[in-house]
C-alpha cells in the first residue's frame, strides 16, 4: 500500500521510532545514491525557507532530482486550476510529492488523489508533521529518550500548528506538558480534549518564570503582533513571553534545552545563542536527516544497502 505522511495523528510510536532510527542511520552513513533515478516534486503554494530548502537538500543528498515551485505566483493555480488537477500533473511527472498549502486539508486531498506518496509540508494552521518529527529527533538526540519528559510550550499556542502537532506526538510518550501563554492565545480545546482522553498531565499557566525551573524542554514560539486586535494588549504581554539569560541561568535544570521552530524574532534573546541550553539551530539542521528518512521510507528504500 502507498504510504503518505499527512498528519501526526496517524503515526504510532513504532512508526516514529522507525523514522527516527533511519534518520540517525542516514546521518551517520550518508547514502548519496539511495534515491538515484527518483524525482521529487516540491509544490509550495506558500513560501517557506527551512522546510523547502531542507527537503531539497534531503532529496539531493540521496541522489534524487527535485523540481517544483515556491509560491502560488506563476503557477497554473494562479490561473484557477484546482489543486486536484495540479496534483494529477505532479503525480505523472514525479515519484513523490511534497506539498505545502495555505488551505487546511490540502495534503489529505493530495494524498487521496495521488497514487504516488505524498508528504505534508504544512497545510494552513492544521498540521506540519515533518517539523514534529524533526522536533522529536532533536529531543531524542539531546535527551537520550522521548519518554516521560517535562516540556513547556510557550507563546502562541492557539495558532501554532507546530505546537499542536508536537503536543499530539509527546502525548504518545507520556510527557508532562506546561502550556504558557496569554489567555487569548491558549491551547485549543480539541487538543486539550485529546490530552484528557489520553490521561496526560498538563498545566495551563501565564507565568514563564515559574515554569522554567520545572521542565526539561522549553519550546518557544513567536507571539505575532497581528494576532492581537488591540496593540495595548500586545504591548502588555510581549515581554512576558521572551526568554533570556537572566530568566534561565541558575534557575533552570542544568540540562534544560530551548527549542524553537524558527524564524525567531525577539522571543529568544541573542544572549542565549551561545548558552549551553540553545538547541534551535541544531533543531533546524536536523530537518535534513529526518526528511531524508521520510523520502527513503516512502519510496521503499530503507537504506543500509
Amino acid at each position, binding site marked *: 500500500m502507498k504510504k503518505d505522511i499527512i*498528519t501526526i*495523528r496517524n503515526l504510532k510510536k513504532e512508526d516514529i521510532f522507525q523514522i527516527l532510527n533511519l534518520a540517525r542511520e542516514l546521518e551517520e552513513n550518508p547514502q548519496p545514491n539511495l534515491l538515484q533515478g527518483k524525482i521529487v516534486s516540491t509544490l509550495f503554494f506558500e513560501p517557506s525557507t527551512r522546510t523547502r530548502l531542507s527537503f531539497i537538500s534531503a532529496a539531493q543528498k540521496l541522489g534524487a532530482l527535485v523540481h517544483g515551485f515556491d509560491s502560488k505566483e506563476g503557477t497554473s493555480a494562479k490561473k*484557477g486550476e*484546482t*489543486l*486536484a488537477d495540479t496534483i494529477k500533473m505532479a503525480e505523472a511527472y514525479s515519484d513523490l510529492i511534497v506539498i505545502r*498549502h*495555505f*488551505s*487546511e*486539508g*490540502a495534503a*489529505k*486531498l493530495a494524498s487521496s488523489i495521488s497514487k504516488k506518496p505524498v508528504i505534508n509540508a504544512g*497545510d*494552513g*494552521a*492544521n*498540521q506540519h508533521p515533518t517539523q514534529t518529527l524533526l522536533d522529536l529527533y532533536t529531543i531524542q538526540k539531546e535527551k537520550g529518550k522521548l519518554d516521560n519528559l517535562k516540556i513547556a510550550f510557550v507563546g502562541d499556542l492557539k495558532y501554532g500548528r507546530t505546537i499542536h502537532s508536537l503536543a499530539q506526538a509527546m502525548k504518545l510518550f507520556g510527557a508532562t506538558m506546561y502550556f504558557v501563554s496569554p489567555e487569548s492565545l491558549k491551547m485549543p480545546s*480539541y487538543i486539550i*480534549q485529546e490530552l*484528557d*482522553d489520553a490521561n496526560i498531565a498538563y498545566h495551563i499557566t501565564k507565568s514563564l518564570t515559574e515554569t522554567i525551573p520545572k521542565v526539561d524542554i522549553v519550546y518557544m514560539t513567536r507571539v505575532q503582533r497581528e494576532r492581537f486586535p488591540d496593540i495595548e494588549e500586545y504591548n502588555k504581554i510581549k515581554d512576558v513571553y521572551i526568554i533570556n539569560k537572566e530568566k534561565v541561568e541558575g534557575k533552570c535544570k542544568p540540562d534544560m534545552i530551548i527549542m524553537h521552530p524558527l524564524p525567531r524574532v525577539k522571543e529568544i534573546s541573542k544572549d542565549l545563542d551561545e548558552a549551553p541550553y540553545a538547541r534551535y539551530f541544531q533543531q533546524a539542521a536536523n530537518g535534513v536527516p529526518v526528511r531524508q528518512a521520510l523520502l527513503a521510507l516512502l519510496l521503499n528504500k530503507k537504506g543500509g544497502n
Partner: protein
Amino acid sequence: MMNIKIKPIQNGTVIDHLPSQLIFKIAQILDLPKSQHVIIVAGNLSSKKMGKKGMIKIEGTFLNKKELDKISLLAEMASVNIIKNGKRVEKFKLNIPKTLNNLAACSNIRCITNMEDESLDSKLLLETGKDGKKYYRCFYCEKLVEIADIKIK
C-alpha cells in the same frame, strides 16, 4: 394540553417523536414549503416518552437516505413510519450516519472543502469520544464538528 386527533395519511411518511421546536426547521431542510403534496406539521402534541413532541406527515412522499440522514442530525430520537394504503408497513428509528458526504459543510472556514475554487465535496466522519460523546471529524482538515453545530447543506 389539548388532545387533538391528527388526520391519518393514506400513502406517505410520518416522522414522529420530533422535538417540537424543530418541526419548522425540519420541514425547511426537507424542502417541504415547495412540495405540492398534503403536509401536516404538528407541534406540542402530548407524548408519554417526551412530554411534548412534534410530528410531520407527508402524503405521497417517501424520503430517501439523504433526507433521513439530515433529519437524524437534528433529531436522532425521531422515528419514521411508512404508510401504504392507510396502513403502517414499516417503522424505524433513525441512525446518525457514519459518513456525511457533502451533506454538511466543514465548520472550519480555512478547510480546503470551503474553498470555492476547488469545488470539492465535504466529507465528515463520525467518531465517538472516550466519554461516549459523538462528533464528526473532517476527513480533510481533521477539525472536530459538534453535532449541534452541524450546518446542513
